[in-house]
């Protein structure tokens, strides 16, 4: 048989710039490439020589979609280096801020980036022509996520209120309580969102993934926890380095992460859900079950449902935090720098985000390492593409291309994030 090529020069509805290439020869896949041409920005490099206080502001700029994740992982890492603990109301506020980001990012992905694939539209604006209520409600829900970030963080993109040790100013009780009526509505909407996504049709596509996510003894993991995997890994963030290795591949301006230097793994909503189902609220568990997703769910196409479940979780969690909020005495705890290093991890909407810093006694960054979720998932995306195409060789080209794109969009990849951390290896000819 002739050879075929599926080629997408510019992946739409993903954050950042990437393309994909699948080559098929004699009904066999000869090549799969996720081509990331987003130019590298060298964050790890220019973090050197900056004061620790500036780090959350700088790392936020790695990604406009999940700046809070960057800020939180930075803070976790630096605080662990300096032996600082942020507890009580401040800790809850961080979680609340992060819930805002989850809501915003998940709703954006579910309705505006992912759903059009399932419904056969090019974009959400086209969906709005046929289903205006659906899109309007989605936008309203997304707006609530942004509102939470605005009240806690100052603005939705690159919040200005996050600092190592806490915040610059804590919100008033009134400002937060004002969000409660909308959260009330949001809870119903999130349930509807789960039901809506559960009704989509999913390709049969289970895969034996190794799931990696954070886990916390008392709560669904958001802004901190231990790193665990479905194959028995259970480590602290500080041990991440010993278990995960990054590898540079020539066709992408980004690094691929491998567990123990050889196994690709999956992080993100599906991993979190599978590894922490027990920590979800009863309502979330109930809705998940009626939606027909239960752990272990191994179909990445169903991540759209899981994102909806996590949206419900974030809405409930935000409501809980706001209801129990009493403004703390001080907006941040004292941070005294010392010569040390520290690692931190948090759950960005699309998976675990790892930061590691070496700091001087003056609080200056000596060295920084950041591993975003998208580079951790990148190898897995290529695996998915390969096996998906293998099973669906009969599809016509257009359909196959769309499905391939969808297989990538399942990951909600954040390509800008994936590219900032290049340390290229030699390729001497």
């Amino acid at each position, binding site marked *: 048989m002739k050879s075929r090529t599926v080629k997408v020069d510019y992946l739409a*509805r993903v954050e950042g710039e990437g393309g994909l290439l699948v080559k098929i020869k004699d009904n066999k896949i000869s090549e799969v490439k996720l081509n990331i041409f987003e130019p590298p920005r060298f*964050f790890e490099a220019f973090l050197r020589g*900056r004061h620790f206080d500036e780090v959350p502001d700088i790392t936020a700029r790695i990604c406009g979609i999940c700046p809070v994740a960057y800020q939180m992982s930075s803070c976790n890492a630096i605080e662990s280096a300096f032996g600082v603990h942020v507890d009580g109301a401040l800790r809850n506020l961080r979680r609340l801020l992060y819930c805002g980001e989850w809501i915003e990012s998940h709703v954006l992905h579910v309705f505006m980036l992912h759903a059009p694939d399932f419904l056969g539209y090019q*974009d959400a604006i086209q969906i709005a022509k046929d289903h205006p209520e659906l899109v309007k409600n989605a936008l309203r829900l997304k707006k609530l996520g942004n509102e939470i970030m605005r009240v806690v963080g100052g603005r939705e993109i690159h919040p200005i209120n996050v600092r190592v040790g806490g915040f610059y*100013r804590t919100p008033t009780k009134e400002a937060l309580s004002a969000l409660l009526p909308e959260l009330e509505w949001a809870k119903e909407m999130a349930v509807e969102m789960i039901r809506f996504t559960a009704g989509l049709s999913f390709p049969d596509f289970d895969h034996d993934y190794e799931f990696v996510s954070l886990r916390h003894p008392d709560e669904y993991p958001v802004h901190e926890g231990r790193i665990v995997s479905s194959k028995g890994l259970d480590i602290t963030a500080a041990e991440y380095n010993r278990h995960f290795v990054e590898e540079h591949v020539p*066709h992408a301006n980004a690094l691929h992460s491998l567990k123990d230097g050889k196994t690709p793994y999956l992080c993100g909503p599906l991993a979190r859900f599978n590894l922490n189902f027990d920590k979800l609220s009863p309502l979330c568990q109930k809705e998940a079950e009626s939606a027909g997703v239960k752990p272990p769910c191994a179909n990445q196409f169903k991540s759209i449902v899981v994102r909806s479940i996590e949206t419900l979780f974030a809405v409930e969690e935000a409501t809980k935090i706001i209801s129990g909020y009493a403004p703390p005495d001080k907006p941040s705890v004292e941070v005294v720098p010392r010569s040390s290093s520290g690692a931190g991890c948090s759950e960005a909407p699309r998976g675990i985000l790892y930061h590691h810093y070496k700091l001087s006694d003056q609080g200056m960054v000596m060295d920084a390492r950041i591993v975003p979720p998208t580079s951790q998932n990148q190898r897995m995306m290529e695996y998915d593409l390969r096996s998906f195409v293998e099973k669906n060789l009969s599809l016509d080209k257009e359909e196959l291309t769309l499905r391939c794109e969808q297989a990538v969009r399942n990951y909600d990849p954040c390509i800008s994030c994936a590219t900032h951390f290049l340390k290229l*290896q*030699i390729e001497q000819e």
Partner: protein
Amino acid sequence: MKKMAKPRLAVWKFASCDGCQLSLLDCEDELLAVADVVEIANFAEASREIQPGPYNISLVEGSITTPHDAERIHKIRRDSGLLITIGACATSGGIQALRNWKDVNEFFSLVYGSPHFIETLKKSTPISDHVFVDYELRGCPVNKYQLLEVLNAFLNQRKPNIFPHSVCMECKANKTTCIMVAKGIPCMGPVTHSGCGALCQSFNRGSFGCYGPKEATNTNSLGGHFKELGMSGDGVMRIFRNFNASAEPFRKESEAHEK
């Protein structure tokens, strides 16, 4: 009566975090109204449907960091009626311009033989260094209401209500306490372009200049004052070397405090 064709809008990305174009999707209340008055012809982050040019309005996010991008922007310019740059990356080179003071080769473990997949310009430069720009909207990220205002103003053929004066003017109009005078916190507000609505100050922190220099800045005087407030020379260098590090007045001031 013949209905006038809607102006066609395109959104482009160069080296950036996506935050500025995301601002457009963050206009939850207005997004559908925008889609009513313009035809979104090319906006990869939002739609799979990519229509060819020419476009009436192009919004360009991100800075130029590779030879390929330096060429791509020329094609976009040719295809665009109005070219509006959005955000610190596009208007001043952005955070990645911090590389301009470093040797990028340092970040490659070793020099490699055929760097065909990774070509990087030594510097990160704003779009206006490469092509003519009709309007520059500042901010890291841009204020989404300002983004709407720019679109609105161009659609209605009027001047955007965006002002190059200091953040202080907004701070005072909002009745926010001046944290520099009342608390001694160093603040970039007096030399920074307005647009954020004096956000940092309302959160009890000093501005870090994410909207870049205001018109006719006097960074020298403020840099001196920071030192009087107890900031080290290195601190002054770093506060001017941020998200708009290579905007001329900030660049000069940061270099003046370089050890």
